[in-house]
């Protein structure tokens, strides 16, 4: 069974993970361990496989695991449906959140909350629980009455992801470029929120292109991903090093050739 006794921190462990989309291998041997209470940053050029890693961890369909394992609290989760992974305490704030037409944020979140906690909660009690988190994120009542992500601005979508994170109380969260598309004020709100949440109860893996998010949240661990591999890991200083030298510096240092990386165009809505 799982090693989830009360004292052991929740642990996500990725070992020797290789994964493909169709015939194309995208993850080429990933090793990464994130524990409840820790903050990790994962950086890497466009197309290096960061979102793919998050998707495989969360169980998005369309990816084939070729080798390796993903365990959460010692349990192999690769065959679990995504909702079971969420129920065990995993959360993924998506790079491109999906619209759910006709379903209000509050209805959606309450359904999710009840599914994860395995208990019913009255609309009133839930609203209270949510309200605290909304205030923290500067989210207005009107927004949670709207349909999930429909017509949301880029920044609203990201804040909505963090609201979900806050309300659903996972033990381990992956934030896939939650800082992209946020203006300076929103970035501050989101970062401070995440910072507050990231205590002993929560482990976070922050996927980002920028130091600016890390100015608010100091990661204990920084990893650099290239061509589907984590090529370098270090402490918070590594993020600064990247900011100075760029990925080219890492490539030179490690003798990696820049090839095959598909630039998917400019990052959406960089503030």
């Amino acid at each position: 069974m799982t090693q989830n006794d009360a004292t052991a921190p929740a642990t996500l462990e990725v070992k020797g993970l290789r994964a493909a989309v169709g015939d194309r291998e995208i993850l080429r041997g990933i090793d990464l361990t994130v524990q409840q209470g820790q903050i990790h940053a994962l950086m890497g050029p466009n197309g290096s496989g960061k979102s793919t890693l998050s998707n495989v961890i969360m169980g998005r369909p369309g990816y084939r695991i070729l080798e390796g394992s993903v365990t959460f609290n010692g349990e192999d989760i690769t065959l679990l449906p995504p909702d079971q992974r969420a129920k065990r305490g995993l959360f993924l704030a998506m790079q491109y959140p999906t619209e759910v037409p006709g379903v209000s944020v509050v209805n959606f979140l309450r359904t999710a909350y009840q599914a994860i906690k395995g208990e019913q909660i009255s609309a009133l009690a839930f609203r209270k629980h949510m309200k605290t988190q909304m205030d923290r994120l500067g989210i207005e009542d009107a927004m949670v009455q709207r349909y999930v992500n429909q017509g949301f601005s880029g920044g609203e979508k990201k804040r909505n992801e963090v609201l979900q994170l806050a309300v659903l109380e996972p033990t381990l969260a992956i934030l896939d470029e939650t800082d992209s598309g946020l203006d300076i004020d929103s970035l501050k709100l989101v970062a401070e929120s995440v910072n507050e949440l990231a205590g002993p109860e929560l482990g976070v893996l922050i996927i980002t292109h920028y130091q600016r998010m890390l100015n608010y949240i100091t990661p204990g661990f920084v990893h650099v991903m290239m061509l589907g591999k984590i090529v370098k890991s270090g402490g918070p200083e590594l993020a600064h090093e990247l900011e100075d030298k760029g990925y080219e510096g890492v490539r030179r240092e490690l003798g990696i050739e820049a090839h095959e990386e598909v630039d998917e165009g400019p990052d959406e809505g960089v503030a």
Partner: protein
Amino acid sequence: MTSLWFDEAAFELLPKATEPLQRMRKQAFEEFRALPIPSQETEEWRYTDLSDFELSFEAHLPSVMRTTSGQDLDGLGVVFSDLDRAAGSDAELVERYLHTLVPTDRTKFTALHGAFRTGGTFLYIPRDVRVELPLQTLTYLDADGAAAFPHTLLIADEGAEVTFIDRFASPDLARALSDAIVEIVVGDGAHVRYVSIQEWGAGVTHLGIQRARVGRDAEFRSLAIGFGASLARAEAETVLAGAGGFSEMLGVFFADGTQHFDHRSVQDHVAPNCSSDLLYKGALRDASRAVYSGWVHVRPGAQKTDAMQTSRNIVLSEHAKADAIPNLEIEANDVRCGHAASVGPVDEETVFYLESRGIPRAEAERLIVTGFFQEVLDRVRLDEVRHNAELAIQEELAELSTAGVA
């Protein structure tokens, strides 16, 4: 012994109606005997095969409950009553309008209806009278082997305003027939909202025709919710007969098991400067089958017509099948007409998004379908009506989240 075959003996057993209605009935009975069961060879009946359908039922008067939301209708001069009763008390109106929009000789089934109908609902709103709250009729059937002939005759005089909810329900039955007709006259400048909620139980064959005639500068808004019956064939037609008229036809249906739905719509633009908008949304699961076919017909002279027709379908199981067949027939040159149709599975991206938040797949599908329908209900401005419809949908979809779990 009563006969189950709609023969002379059964006809003679019917309670007598007023003289003019009795004549209409007799004629309908002759038509019923002369007409064949509609054949799949015809365009209208292509998608529903009734060739083996046994017309052996006992004509039956379902129980009917009318609710007025506590309004003083008499004071307003509104008549809301049993149709046969109105044939006595408001003979002139009934005789003038009954079976004018849906003539008895339209098909064998309308003739059968004309011959064997008893009861039904008559609603008349006098000129410039506004009925604030919705009126409702619940038609409830619980007799096996019964044939019910629900009829709604709604007449909104010039400038009148009303919202009417027609609800049909039954438990699951071994076999029953609902042969229904709705005739709606929307007078010049009148505003009518008509909502039908069809929740017949399994075993019921529902054949319904709804036809509205919209006068000058009048507004007709319909919402059809279809969940029930084993086989439901529902035709909804709006004739835009006076310049400046508007028609909105909304539809929501959900099919499961081996249900067969055949939905047909007609937006018939006769007068110029009218607009019509149709949006039907359906979801199917199990081995159910649904066909939507719609016509936009713009008659010569109906210039400046603005007509739109949209059919969207979500198919939740690989054994279910939906088709959407739009048709435009345009005989005027200065018009704006469009149609859109889609049939497809539930969006996997959306399912994953919900699942990643801990919502199991079946529940995710329920939520997605609820949202899909919500977009239709959002067009209904009257809170009571929308709420009614939302409840009906919630109830219908409740099992979706449990039944789907292996």
